[in-house]
């Protein structure tokens, strides 16, 4: 978990080159450096450069690259390769991810690790090729059928995307699950100076991988179980795994939260717009902080719930009609007003728009705020107690000690 970021990493230990790189290419190279053995893809804007980078580099390195006949083909090739224990990746953009949904469900059900990158574009349907976050539902609650989840990582910069590529492979292998990395088209297409610093997760030996049944009985990787009792047990195991992931792997970043009266919840490119808006708001004396989920699933609900006890209101900013805001509201449980601002169709909210939404929220909060606001808000019982996270959240404890705001 990433609380407030520590500034300044040790400089000389890893001397790094700083270069200008396009997001799609940086993500591709990070996957290669993370030890990706095989990549399968199908061209689609705005992720095509990722596929093209792989086409050249993977073959140069003697690794596997296939331009498949469709996204169905690509992800099922990934399924086969991953079943043998290889480190595999696919990438696409929104319409292609819809086609991959079926195999995602099979892989989740059969415990097959894989990393899938979605450079999101605007929908629905063929939509457009502009940046979007309208696949939040698809990523966190949707794609295939059945009771399953996949960890979803959402970087806000190209550098972070590179780091999260390695994390994605780690999570996929640790939990035997597909992992999604989602970025909007801006992150895929923009160029940014990045540190050429890569991480290669350690190789594991898998006792489930298909390697040929030499000296042992045949192994089977499957999701089918026609016996309802057995299938329910498999499902319970899956749910247990998901609780483990939620407990251990929830990631988020806080910024300017220590004295914030209002909080913006945003991820990816929307979080960067939010930062600019927050800087401007603070110049005008409005104390705003940023809560940026890095894992969209597991969503940092407990942390946001705690935060919501100590702030006046929350604004969610997305490149969508309002998808993550549903999770924000579920976490906040009515403790404070939750407003939303979003743009669709490939448009990105401007800092000015966000400022406007912040001012509207502030007006609303000021009207309803009273010193006793929290006195009659008894904690609502929940099915799952928040885990203890004493060391990582100094700002929360500080606020609790001060006895809430105002």
């Amino acid at each position: 978990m990433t609380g407030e970021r520590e500034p300044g990493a040790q400089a000389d230990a890893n001397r790094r080159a700083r270069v200008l790189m396009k997001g799609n290419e940086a993500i591709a190279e990070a996957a290669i450096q993370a030890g990706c053995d095989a990549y399968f893809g199908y061209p689609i804007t705005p992720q095509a450069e990722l596929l093209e980078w792989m086409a050249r580099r993977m073959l140069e390195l003697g690794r596997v690259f296939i331009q498949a006949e469709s996204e169905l083909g690509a992800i099922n090739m990934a399924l086969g390769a991953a079943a043998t224990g290889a480190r595999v990746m696919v990438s696409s953009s929104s319409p292609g991810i819809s086609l991959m949904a079926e195999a995602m469900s099979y892989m989740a059900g059969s415990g097959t690790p894989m990393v899938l990158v979605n450079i999101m574009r605007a929908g629905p349907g063929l939509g457009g090729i502009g940046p979007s976050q309208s696949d939040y539902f698809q990523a966190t609650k949707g794609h295939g059928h059945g009771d399953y989840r996949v960890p979803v990582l959402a970087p806000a910069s190209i550098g972070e995307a590179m780091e999260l590529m390695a994390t994605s492979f780690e999570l996929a292998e640790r939990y035997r699950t597909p992992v999604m990395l989602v970025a909007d088209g801006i992150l895929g297409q923009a160029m940014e100076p990045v540190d050429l610093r890569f991480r290669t997760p350690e190789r594991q030996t898998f006792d489930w991988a298909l390697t040929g049944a030499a000296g042992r009985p045949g192994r089977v990787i499957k999701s089918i179980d026609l016996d309802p009792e057995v299938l329910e047990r498999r499902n319970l195991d899956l749910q247990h795994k998901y609780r483990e992931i939620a407990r251990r792997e929830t990631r988020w970043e806080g910024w300017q939260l220590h004295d914030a009266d209002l909080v913006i919840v945003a991820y990816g490119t929307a979080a960067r717009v939010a930062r600019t808006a927050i800087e401007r708001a603070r110049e005008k004396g409005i104390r705003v902080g940023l809560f940026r989920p890095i894992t969209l699933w597991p969503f940092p609900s407990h942390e946001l719930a705690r935060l919501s006890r100590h702030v006046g209101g929350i604004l969610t900013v997305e490149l969508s009609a309002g998808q993550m805001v549903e999770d924000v509201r579920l976490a906040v449980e009515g403790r404070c007003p939750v407003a939303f601002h979003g743009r669709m169709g490939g448009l990105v909210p401007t800092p000015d728009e966000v400022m406007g939404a912040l001012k509207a929220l502030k007006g609303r909060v000021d009207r309803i705020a009273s010193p006793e606001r929290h006195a009659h808000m008894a904690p609502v019982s929940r099915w799952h107690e928040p885990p203890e996270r004493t060391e990582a959240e100094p700002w929360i404890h500080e606020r609790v000690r001060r006895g809430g705001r105002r």
Partner: protein
Amino acid sequence: MTLHTPGPESPAPGASAARLIYARPEVLRDRSTHYCPGCGHGVVHRLLAEVLTELDLPAHTIAVAPVGCAVFAYDYLDIDFVEAPHGRAPAVATGIRRVRPEAFVLTYQGDGDLAAIGTAEIVHAAARGERITAIFVNNGIYGMTGGQMAPTTLLGQKTTSSPFGRDAALMGYPIRITEMLAQLPGVTYAARGTIADVGSIGKLKAMIKRACQVQMEGGGFAIVEALSNCPVGWGMTPQQSIEHLKGPVVEAYPLGVIVDRGAVAQPTHDLGCPSPAHPEA
């Protein structure tokens, strides 16, 4: 049929003239199957088990199971198996093939799986000349889901979703997909056999063996179509279904080797680009 399955059943040296000529290959698990009485899937499993054993392949094999009645093939064949979504076995096998060059890669698919929902995957695996061996069990029907029409269902044939018989005007014509695939230069071997009688079963086994050897020798894509029966889906007794198989089915789907391009795929200069597309490359 000769088999070398050394095992407890083998006669002790110096024992009487008794000679073992028929035994269960070890890779075929000793259990009854879920297939309906008289179903051809079991015969194809058996042939596959014999061929894998004879070629010493079980320990090197990674197989892909279909969605269809053979979805539980891994319950009967003691080899490594991965389940593919309906129709996607050739793509799954491609992934295995590319990351495991040393493995023997096998797919097993029905006709709905291969010739309807999975058409793109089979065509492109064949077009890429993937070094995999595909076993294609064509029973002209969707067995698993209750006997609906398949792309291979014969004209006039009644199924639960063509209750008045398959009408070409409404439902199109049966697909001879193995012939279609045989057009592709990536296909080293394509053949069609049947489980209809003992003689045919022997020939089918030889085809399966050849399709496996092609892969072992470094050839391209190899496919064997096994015309099979589905007494339940066809609404026939097992005996009637065999007669039907030998009659109209074999007539519609001619038996024999469709193409055998030798172990190594022939270079196809006639499909090349005369000048390099990228001068810098």
